[in-house]
């Protein structure tokens, strides 16, 4: 492999020997980026007994896979994983490295970016490849790292023109996962792991994880409430509506911050990205961070007292009114239709 190929790497996160969804989503996106810059897509798999994950990455478009498989690597550990990635990045100097913006990715990516002094952009909502003219200089095939910034009226495109390696993290659900129509012939490159005493500075005592109970990503109907509901008491109406029409309950960041709803149900840039058939945005003004997580819903119903709320500009159906008034009326009408 030519060291200065325009290769795109995806760090494939695994838990208990299973690849995480966000990694498969990133491989799907990475395939397109690699094609756009005439490079190869390479998955980087670290774990114990995870050769099958390398193999699976080819189904999502990887041309090659770096596999570092060792019993000591069973669970994610910052120091060992970062050491492995640093050595690989130093040696191969990839053009792009993508990480999921999960707890693991957000722990690992900055450490790796710091080592190679690469640019790193967190929580991108889109990635593109383009030639760029910046400060009078021309750059070929740069990665455009696109994310909402500063409160929500603004979308910033970040570039890292002067560093060889461009790194970015992306939240789960932002990119679409799709198996490649033309899977490649498997080429797994096994990298030996040499334990280091530094790895022992941090040891895992115990780990508790519950399988995700909430599956917003897969829900056909989502009823989301925002700070406009004002109190936890009125937020119950969101639950009532969701219950009546068989939807999942969700919320905006403001609703999470106000304690109306747990973070795992947050829709938006720093929460989950969803694409349901029907999305209710109730008492949600529609800041771009929120819209980034739901604007691809097939039908959006917005309910808000403020006729100028930006949410009305992306909704399909708009109801100007107080949720405490609208929701019971909707439920009643719906129930009478079912009779």
């Amino acid at each position, binding site marked *: 492999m030519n060291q200065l190929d325009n290769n795109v790497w995806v760090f494939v996160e695994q838990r208990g020997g299973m690849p995480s969804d966000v990694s498969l989503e990133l491989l799907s996106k990475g395939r397109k980026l690699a094609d756009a810059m005439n490079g190869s897509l390479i998955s980087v798999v670290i774990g114990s007994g995870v050769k099958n994950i390398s193999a699976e990455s080819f189904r999502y478009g990887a041309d090659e896979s770096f596999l570092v498989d060792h019993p000591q690597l069973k669970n994610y550990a910052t120091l060992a994983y970062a050491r492995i990635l640093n050595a690989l990045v130093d040696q191969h100097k990839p053009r792009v490295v993508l990480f999921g913006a999960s*707890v*693991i990715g957000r722990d690992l*990516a*900055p*450490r790796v*970016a*710091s*080592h190679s*002094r690469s*640019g*790193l952009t*967190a929580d991108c909502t889109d990635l593109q490849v383009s030639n*760029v003219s*910046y400060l009078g200089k021309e750059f070929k095939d740069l990665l*455009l*790292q696109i994310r909402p*910034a*500063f*409160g*929500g*009226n*603004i*979308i*910033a*495109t*970040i570039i*890292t023109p*002067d*560093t060889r390696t461009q790194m970015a993290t992306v939240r789960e659900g932002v990119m679409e996962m799709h198996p490649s129509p033309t899977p490649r012939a498997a080429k797994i490159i096994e990298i030996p792991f040499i334990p280091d005493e530094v790895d022992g*500075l*941090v*040891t*895992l*005592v115990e*780990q*508790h*994880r*519950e*399988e995700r109970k909430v599956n917003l990503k897969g829900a056909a*109907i989502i009823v989301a409430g925002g700070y406009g509901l004002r109190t936890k008491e009125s937020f119950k109406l969101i639950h009532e509506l969701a219950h009546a029409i*068989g939807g999942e309950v969700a919320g905006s960041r403001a609703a999470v911050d106000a304690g109306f709803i747990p973070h795992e149900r947050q829709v938006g840039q720093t929460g989950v990205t969803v694409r349901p*058939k*029907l999305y209710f945005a109730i008492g949600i003004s529609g800041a*771009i961070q929120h819209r980034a997580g739901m604007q691809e819903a097939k*039908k959006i119903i917005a309910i808000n007292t403020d006729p100028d709320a*930006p949410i009305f*500009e*992306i909704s399909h*159906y*708009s*109801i*100007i009114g107080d949720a405490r*008034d*609208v929701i019971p*009326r*909707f439920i*009643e*009408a*719906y129930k009478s*239709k079912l009779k």
Partner: protein
Amino acid sequence: MHNSIVLVKQVPDTSNISGQVMKEDGTVNRSKLPAIFNFEDKVALEFALQIKDQSGGKVTVLTMGPPRASDVLRECLYMGADEAYLITDRKFAGADTLATSYVLSEAIKKIGSYDFIFAGRQAIDGDTAQVGPQTAEKLNIPQVTYAERILEIKDRSVRVRRKIDGGYEILDCVLPVLMTVIKDAGEPRPFSAKRVMAFKGAKSLLELEKMAEGNSLLYIDKLVFEYTSRSLFIPTLTADDLNIDAARCGVKGSPTKVYSVESVVLTGNDPVQIENSKAGMNSLIDKLMEDRILG
């Protein structure tokens, strides 16, 4: 006894940002926004103060920012920090997380020995959560991000519980360590009235220089001496005070550049207005059922 360094940041209150506060280059004109203490950094300070309460040691706070960032340093002193440093220089302006972590790590090296470095998980103006891990990497020490609780501190190690996706894990970590804490991890203590009285007059070098300006009776050296002897001096570190490579600071040392900024123009969907009435709801539900969106 364990010494802690706490990294804090003064952040623009991003809950209310309008287009007028953006500069042409896409960065925020911070002077036009109310500035607040990044909440998770306050929780980080609380972690350090609790360690001090239990077993002694010193709590030193660092912030990198413009001169007015000394406001948050005074707040740290009100909460109980022993010493607070302002790291400020025009050369540091416009830094991304990589350049910021470089300067912070050099300042930490200068300040000296520590067992813990605490920081908030992320600052609300960027939500990147990168400065903590990048600083740890530069100092070549372990990191524990998303820390929720310190379970036990031994002489040379700490047992800590951290959040992970879908649960938590418990780690044993050899000191020194850099820990980033999440907002639910603790409740920052209120300011102590006694300490507010004691430290409200604390001043950074820049603030003293301002006082001395235009007053021929005040000499800056004398002021610094006076304030230092009354423990009211907020030490200031500039690029000259740190062993620093100017090419790695500020805009120059930041690999990420804002290429373009777009005010978001909404696509102008033409939404169907539904009247907030029984008839309106009926027609909406009919449409949804027709489109097989509702069953």
